[in-house]
């Protein structure tokens, strides 16, 4: 029987075709793929260690030996940027995974069960949304203290409401459909209906939101480190590097330019992917 099924093009195949026509999105994917490679193979790519100090080379402008110059401890800026990509990518992806799982669960439960459950959960989200996100991240990370894991948790918590609202909306839009009713008639449990029937139908907007959230999470992580709340020195974090470079803005401006450039390129790439995915997954909606 199974062999008789005519295989049509799936939604994903069409999405991929449309995505491939979007040059900005393709460029974004290439940049992020390269960045992941850089982060994974940082030890091999980086010309120096991230904390190797050379006291003969303190705050030297870019040269052949140090392509992007050296910082106030004579450390190679390029190598530090390369190692720093690990932090940014980890925080970006893991923090968003935290908010995706928690927020998605809250939204799905709220939308699926409705009534009081919905009301209570969404009011909690409203309270969180009343506090500007970056402030909440600052409060949580100052309460948790510095460190990579705490940074991820702080950034992750702040992005929960976005996913909760999105998930709830898409659950509401498919909840009343016949295939859900059919699943229930066949005796599927609530958990099974949510996970197997509703989730796959809400995945498109969630993917778009997740991509854009990764960009935002990386920005948040850099901001917190810039304020001295995220990753502590000597481990290089792009925002932290900018913070350390501030006193030398007048004399050694390259120290303030390259880390910012690294952040911006990453965020631009992720935003391009996010926009491209949105257009590709929902071709009806014109930008």
């Amino acid at each position: 029987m199974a062999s008789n099924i005519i295989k049509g093009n799936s939604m994903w195949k069409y999405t991929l075709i449309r995505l491939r026509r979007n040059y900005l999105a393709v460029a974004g994917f290439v940049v992020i793929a390269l960045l992941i490679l850089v982060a994974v193979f940082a030890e091999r790519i980086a010309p120096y260690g991230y904390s190797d100090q050379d006291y003969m080379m303190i705050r030297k402008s870019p040269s052949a030996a140090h392509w992007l110059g050296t910082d106030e401890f004579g450390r190679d800026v390029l190598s530090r940027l390369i190692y720093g990509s690990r932090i940014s990518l980890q925080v970006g992806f893991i923090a968003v995974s935290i908010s995706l799982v928690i927020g998605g669960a809250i939204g799905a439960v709220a939308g699926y069960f409705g009534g009081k459950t919905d009301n209570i959960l969404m009011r909690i989200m409203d309270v969180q949304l009343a506090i500007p996100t970056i402030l909440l991240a600052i409060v949580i990370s100052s309460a948790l203290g510095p460190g990579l894991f705490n940074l991820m948790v702080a950034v992750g918590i702040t992005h929960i409401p976005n996913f909760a609202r999105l998930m709830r909306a898409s659950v509401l839009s498919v909840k009343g459909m016949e295939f859900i009713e059919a699943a229930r008639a066949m005796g599927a449990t609530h958990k099974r209906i949510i996970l197997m029937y509703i989730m796959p139908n809400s995945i498109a907007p969630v993917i778009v939101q997740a991509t854009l959230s990764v960009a935002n999470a990386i920005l948040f992580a850099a901001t917190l480190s810039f304020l001295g709340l995220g990753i502590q020195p000597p481990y290089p974090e792009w925002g932290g590097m900018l913070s350390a470079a501030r006193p030398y803005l007048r004399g050694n401006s390259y120290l303030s330019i390259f880390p910012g450039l690294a952040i911006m390129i990453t965020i631009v790439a992720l935003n391009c992917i996010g926009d491209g995915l949105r257009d590709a997954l929902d071709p009806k909606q014109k930008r």
Partner: protein
Amino acid sequence: MLIPVILCVMIVLFTILYFTPGDPARIALGQEVTDEAITAFRSARGLDDPFVVQLGRYIYRAVFKADLGYSYVMKSPVSYELSSRIPMTAKLAFCAVLFSTLVGIPLGIICAIRQYSILDSVVTLVTLLGVSMPTFWTGLLLILAFSVHLGWFSSMGFGTLNEMVLPILTLSGSSIAIIARITRSSMLEVIKSDYIRTARAKGQRESVVIFRHALPNAMIPILTIISIQFGTLLGGSIITEAIFSISGVGRLMLEAISMRDYPIIQGGVLFISLAFCLINLAADILYAFVDPRIHVK
């Protein structure tokens, strides 16, 4: 909805900071004090009471007496510290919102009218960069260009007009980009509708079509994003104030964070959240003026 939300914000903030490690008495009195002094301080401030009692007292005093407690470090009432800093932050945030609205909306409209033109592409690209630049980096670059190299504007403070330029540009950078993007897409949607075609068909001038027929109908999403941006800007003012040494609420809070001065952090976040909620409320009311179909309930 406003009052319960703010009450819950107070509970959340109090709870987070209550369970943060670190003894307030040690923070206030320093490390080298006798145990008697610590005990006296704790009992005087009621720090040994159960959590619920302390929370209740905090809310009671904040709501009925406008008393947000004492700063551990500065030894003065939080409400006093805050109120002396609020005007600066309010001025900064208000100027930034005004500026980003005045620049963002026209940019968006121009892009929507001339869709796919070179100008549209350029603005789209610039707004993409705008939303992708971290606020603190924008600030550093602006200082580098206009203060260090060109020497046009000051990079410290927020008093004179000259000092105001760079902080406002820094803070409004990403908001301009976001407002321009939303305006563009919202206008594009409206411009494609039938009544705009009708307006053009009856020979109405293009400027009237855009500003009288299209813009008001495109205003709702724009208003929404502006009110959300207000919150982002209030939060972003922390970074801007840190970069430009502006003594506003944000800088007060940053100093409080490094000193673990929790009452100040609580008060500052509470104030900003309250301001944000009030602005959202104002936006909700404005909707009804912009779109008469919406009734204020």
